[in-house]
């Protein structure tokens, strides 16, 4: 008892000289991934934050034992980037946007289709021939010496059959799965994502300003995202059982994308096309740039309130990439050239060479009169 005052003094002194710590800071490895994610994912900071938090916990070895690294449910309108976030994370971690396992829940409607996931039991047709999607080999396929992490996506989880639900509940809770041949698979190194469109009709109605055949102006509502979040959460609670919801570490509702965010996405997609050309062709590639008019056209054709940016990639591929490939096929574009892509008033795309390898200084802001190809 006599030492109490001196103990208190020591604690007070220690507190007075304590060095403040910042629990929100990320380690170097996480910071790199964060920079990559934030440069590629537009308007979905909550999703990026959720992913980074779980990744940081995994990196320092503090993920709960005998559970997956994390169980994340992504909700939100179609075309808002739910799967895209996982692709970007895969690219950041493994250098490949396809470096994750995708289970399309709609493909497992029948009880027997579960065999595709876990393999057929011995004695059944297909045993030894079907490679289970969730085999130990498949789960470690993208892992590296440095990063023993697997990204696993259950897409459109609301379409899962009862058998798949039971299987998923076991995985989400115990990170364990028994395959058809009775071997056990450990999923404790998996970061599990589930995406769902529950509440989509209500969300579309909000985003579009109503249902029906009449063309209506989208609602300009400052609280639109709050409303969509409420709808998504309510729909998820109605659709999914409490035992499922209780196994989730985070539920993220994706926001509807604003026009300026869609423009940003378009710029990112066009930059990606340029990188693709450079990657496919090598050092001797050509460059392209788009006029403001064609950018507006791409946004109009590739985005809408109902489907977000879902069709943007497709529209860019069909109009820009195919057009450029045709120019290369007909030797109108060579290495070092710069092509300007525009659009006429009647909607015809125009391609014009504004610089060549021999005259790089000829790049100008004005559109040249010479039109090389028309789509």
């Amino acid at each position: 008892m006599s030492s109490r005052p001196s103990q208190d003094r020591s604690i007070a002194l220690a507190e007075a000289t304590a060095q403040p710590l910042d629990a929100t800071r990320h380690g170097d490895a996480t910071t790199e991934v964060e920079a990559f994610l934030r440069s590629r994912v537009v308007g979905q900071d909550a999703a990026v934050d959720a992913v980074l938090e779980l990744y940081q916990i995994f990196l320092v070895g503090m993920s709960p034992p005998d559970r997956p690294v994390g169980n994340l449910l992504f909700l939100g309108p179609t075309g808002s980037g739910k799967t895209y976030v996982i692709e970007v994370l895969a690219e950041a971690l493994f250098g490949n946007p396809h470096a994750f396992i995708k289970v399309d829940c709609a493909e497992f409607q029948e009880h027997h289709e579960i065999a595709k996931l876990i393999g057929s039991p011995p004695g059944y047709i297909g045993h030894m021939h079907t490679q289970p999607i969730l085999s130990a080999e498949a789960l470690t396929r993208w892992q590296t010496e440095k990063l023993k992490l697997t990204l696993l996506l259950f897409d459109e989880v609301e379409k899962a059959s009862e058998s798949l639900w039971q299987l998923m509940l076991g995985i989400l809770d115990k990170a364990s799965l028994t395959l058809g041949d009775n071997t056990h698979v450990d999923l404790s190194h998996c970061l599990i994502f589930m995406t769902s469109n529950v509440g989509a009709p209500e969300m579309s109605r909000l985003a579009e300003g109503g249902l029906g055949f009449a063309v209506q102006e989208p609602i300009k509502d400052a609280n639109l995202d709050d409303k969509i979040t409420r709808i998504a959460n309510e729909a998820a609670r109605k659709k999914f059982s409490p035992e499922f919801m209780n196994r989730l570490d985070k539920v993220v509702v994706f926001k509807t994308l604003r026009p300026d965010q869609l423009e940003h996405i378009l710029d990112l997609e066009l930059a990606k096309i340029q990188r693709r050309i450079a990657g496919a062709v090598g050092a001797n590639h050509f460059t392209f740039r788009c006029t403001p008019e064609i950018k507006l056209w791409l946004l109009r054709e590739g985005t809408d309130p109902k489907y977000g940016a879902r069709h943007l990639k497709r529209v860019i591929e069909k109009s820009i990439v195919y057009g450029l490939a045709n120019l290369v096929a007909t030797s109108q574009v060579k290495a070092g050239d710069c092509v300007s892509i525009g659009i006429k008033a009647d909607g015809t795309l125009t391609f014009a060479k504004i610089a060549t390898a021999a005259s790089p200084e000829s790049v100008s802001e004005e559109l040249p009169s010479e039109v090389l190809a028309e789509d």
Partner: protein
Amino acid sequence: MKKILVVDNNEMLCRLACDILRAEGYRAVPASNAAEALQAFEEEEFDLLVTAFQMPGMSGLELARAVRNRSPQFPVIVMTAFEPVESEHVTLWLPKQYLFPNLLEKIHYCLTGVKPESEVIHR
């Protein structure tokens, strides 16, 4: 995943075409001439050959003949900036001026038997 060998001495086109095919979900392998293509056939199995017609050395038509000698029904698409010629070794001819998206339709036709919407096929 269907595997396609794309052959063209225009390296930029060859690689760009492969990139587009990959984006469409195919496995595309580039080769810059017929000799390289035949070497690839020795080492791997393919579902379809897409080749340029005129190339230095062995032409696309000669390549098609060599491939068909080994595998008589093998599907071959020949891309050309010139008039197509009669050949039993070619499944489809495709004008280079209208390469995309026509090439994708023709590939789909060759691999599935489902006819493309627009008919610009020359046999």
